[in-house]
């Protein structure tokens, strides 16, 4: 009996549609997030993550419908992030069928929001999204050293906050999991920022999900073995059919990482 390492495909959703598309052979409509979710459910994904990047407020409610329809067909945990700013947003997502919500900008602007949310819904459903970029700092009389700075608004706005300190503070406020994304690596397919992942994973007692930059199966293995992540999140390698979830699990298992093996586990 060992806790298995999780593989989490992530879908970016805008106005109720998957952005960038998902190239599964058997999908009728590659832009429908629910169809993509069902395909991942059947493929043996351990969890699913929706990141809602809808910009306009009038379309914000589309995500609730996506989550509700997904929950009718997928019997695995679903995390939803993007635009979560009020306790009421969390309540609506959980009622729609989400199991966890991921908070980014609102956690930076108001750390007590994380505390209120965790108090209300429990630590286990509050994920704080730690979006960070590398920076060099110079202290007088010392060598330059690498640090990471927190960004908000999908990686656009720097905050001046140190990522490792921010992560510890969020756990103190009640975050039950951290989704650590390297904004430098996101979309580059050059692998996770392993130093960032490890610096945070080693300093907090909650699970860390590594995100941003996966281009190969070795990247997934490294995220766990070198980065000390409890779970790995990836988008494009799965969406575009470069690898299947089953191939990723085979590979990670061959490298000694315990995986949940049951690829026909879908509904």
């Amino acid at each position, binding site marked *: 009996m060992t806790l298995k390492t999780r593989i989490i495909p992530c879908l970016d959703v805008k106005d109720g549609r998957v952005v960038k598309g998902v190239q599964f052979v058997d999908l009728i409509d590659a832009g429908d997030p629910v169809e993509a979710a069902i395909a991942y459910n059947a493929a043996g994904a351990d969890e699913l993550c929706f990141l809602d990047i809808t910009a306009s407020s009038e379309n914000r409610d589309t995500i609730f419908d996506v989550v509700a329809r997904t929950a*009718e067909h997928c019997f695995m945990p679903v995390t939803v992030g993007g635009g979560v700013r009020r306790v009421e947003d969390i309540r609506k997502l959980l009622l729609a*069928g989400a199991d966890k919500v991921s908070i980014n900008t609102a956690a930076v602007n108001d750390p007590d929001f994380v505390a209120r949310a965790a108090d209300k819904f429990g630590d286990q459903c509050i994920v704080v999204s730690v979006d960070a970029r590398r920076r060099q700092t110079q202290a007088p009389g010392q060598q330059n050293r690498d640090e990471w700075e927190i960004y908000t608004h999908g990686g656009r706005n720097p905050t001046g906050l140190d990522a490792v300190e921010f992560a510890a503070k969020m756990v103190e406020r009640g975050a039950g999991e951290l989704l650590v994304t390297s904004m430098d690596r996101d979309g580059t397919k050059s692998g996770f920022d392993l130093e960032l992942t490890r610096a945070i994973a080693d300093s907090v007692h909650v699970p860390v999900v590594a995100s941003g930059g996966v281009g190969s199966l070795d990247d997934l293995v490294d995220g766990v073995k070198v980065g000390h992540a409890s779970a790995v999140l990836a988008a494009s390698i799965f969406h575009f059919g470069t690898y299947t979830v089953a191939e990723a699990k085979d590979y990670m298992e061959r490298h000694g990482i315990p995986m949940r093996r049951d690829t026909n586990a879908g*509904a």
Partner: protein
Amino acid sequence: MISIVNYGIGNVGSVVNMLRHVGIEVDLVATADEVERSKALVLPGVGAFGTAMRALHECKLVDALKQKVVAERTPILGICLGMQLLAKESEEAPGCEGLGFVDASFVKFSDHRTSERLKVPHMGWNTIDVKRPNPLVEQDEQERRFYFVHSYYARCNNSEDVIATCRYGEEFVCIYGRGNVWGTQFHPEKSHKFGMQLLSRFAAYAC
């Protein structure tokens, strides 16, 4: 018909979805009268022990549940926090009385009790070891995986209540049962086919 207790805490929707998916009729019960009319109960729940017990009191469901479960011996399945509420108490809310149907207390996972460095919550898929025959899950050689998300786990005062265990740092009770009262620490409604099997078996036993 399985009645799911809807007291404003937790993921009622997921439980409804899976029960319907496996062909079981469900309804939601939110008042003492509705609980009184039910034939089999599921008590879901995510969140904190103290908040959830307060919610059960505010909905005036505590006495109704005690009447159904203790006096009428109506089958009940508690899931995750719902399992914890069936017990006497939890370290999470000292002084707060649980429903007390099972003689167990909940304690928090801690590095201090084991040599491993534990991430808490215990979050993800883990396998279980079935200790004795029971209506929920077969006792055979098959490895069954379930989805867990929790920071507290049961310590049963009667060893015969232990149905299955799991290991995270140390061995802990992940299913308990006493008479008509059952609890799973994991989420069957999020556990794919093994979860479907378990909920189908509960329905077959309870209805």
